[in-house]
């Protein structure tokens, strides 16, 4: 099972850097999770008992009434860097 996991690609998609030891450990963890799902899918269950959503409750919708937001100052207060009322982050491309 573990050989099916491209841990380097998973790390790249998650935008994290892993050393060799972490790669091995996480690869092992992930394969255990996948094996667990494999076991679940082998179970014989009637279709209507299968939930595709983790929450078994119905959806509450909110009325479209705008309410007070954070102040401009509050919204920016935790930003490591800001300028001209905008959040500033390292350069990123479209």
């Amino acid at each position, binding site marked *: 099972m573990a050989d099916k996991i491209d841990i380097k*690609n998973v790390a*790249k*998609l998650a*935008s994290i850097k892993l050393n060799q030891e972490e790669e091995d450990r996480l690869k092992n963890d992930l394969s255990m999770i996948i094996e667990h799902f494999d076991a679940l899918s082998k179970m014989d269950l009637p279709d209507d008992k299968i939930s*595709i*959503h*983790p*929450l078994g*409750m*119905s*959806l*509450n*919708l*909110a*009325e*479209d*009434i*705008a*309410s007070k*937001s*954070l102040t*401009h100052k509050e*919204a*920016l207060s935790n930003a490591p860097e800001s*300028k*001209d*009322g*905008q*959040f*500033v*982050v*390292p*350069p*990123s*491309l*479209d």
Partner: protein
Amino acid sequence: MNIIPTIGMETHVELKTNSKMFCRCHVLDTESPNESLCPTCLGLPGSLPVPNKKAIEFITLLALSTNCSITNDGMFHRKNYFYPDLPKNYQISQFDLPVGTEGSLEIVVDGEFGTVEIERVHMEEDTGKSTHIGSGRIDSATSTHLDFNRAGIPLVEVVTKPLIKSSKEAVAYIEELRQLVIDLDISEGKLEKGNLRFDANISVAHEGDKELGTKVEIKNMNSLKSLEKAIEYEISRQTKMLIAEENIIQETRHWDEKKEVTSSMRSKEGSADYRYFSDPDIPNMILSNDFVNEIKKIIPELPSQKRKMFIETGLSIEDANNLGKNKNWIGDLYRSITKITGDSKSSFNWVTGELQGQLRKLEIKDLPNWVTPKNLSEIILLVKEDKISFTSGKEILANLIEQEIVPEEFASENNLIQENNIEEISKIVEEVIENNSEVLERIANGEEKLIGFLVGQIIKISKGQVNPSVAKELLLKEISS
């Protein structure tokens, strides 16, 4: 062998709600950055999204109006990607269970009906706006500035099947979709404000090929003009490559408005893998049949229905389509007028041409209350029956917009009624012929443009009360006899 282009459109429609999609921050139309934010739309830990009821109603309206099947048991998914315009590092969207699937939209291309097949209509949230700061080129930016006012505004994505065959069809489709969201009153529908944003997927293949060619996505088209030009450019670029048997790469290309070319965008590394999974913070979105039936009841008259009704009054498909693009009161006015005049084409021309033109010039938004279908029809009929000239009709209309007048009375009082009595006109024609023997000789020698001069003389003597076409007809008859 013919090369056939195939186009699919992806359009984002910004809905006009008061509050955002998953939080109750105001939807603001402001240049001041970061004025409408809360922990939810900033993606702060511990915040929970609650979907906007109005937005769900709006998307259901749109899905039903594009003949989609409604997914009763739908859900929201997280679309994961790292880009700073979305502070959560994911966008709440819909994946395999969108609100609407398998729809269609009637369009008008070159005065004929066509159909665009809709693949899906799904709900998502808008991103923030990023500005790249630095000197010149985008890839030499030194920092990125972010304004999240737009982040979280409800957005509907409408995806067509790749069955569109030309740039004209694509433009007609966007025009139709725009009119639809305006008539449904679910979006401002303004392209220049980004309420409607579209990307085009384009490929080319040899006619008869079983598979489509490699798909190229074109972004950054801000107007219908640039959409048309970008598609034309891309089809010709790919066609040349296919003929030269070059390899077309699957990529995203940017439309350059100034150079009028598409150019390759540096691709996001591993971008295709969004790792969608159902958003554990939002329960399944159940759209009950009762809910859907309630929405069905409030669907207004759609562009296609308006068109049908206008065509039934005698208008061409093209005219009917153009009339439908106007404010509703214009269409209503046309309907009343054409009933009185019994002449759909003149009624259409007067209402959409002269009347709207004069109102626009005077910057009048609403019709003055004394300008009625009845007195407008009176002007149209006076012109139609040759009692007054077209120019006089325009003059009477201008006066009617200014003050309450009775067109026919105004025409008499101001000597605008044309002489249609053939005997009277013939007398004037004879007089003009007698006094212009030299001119007649020149006409006989081929200077035919002088006929216009003589017609002018006739009109002058009659003090403008002779119908020019009748005068010309009688004159030509006299000359040739």
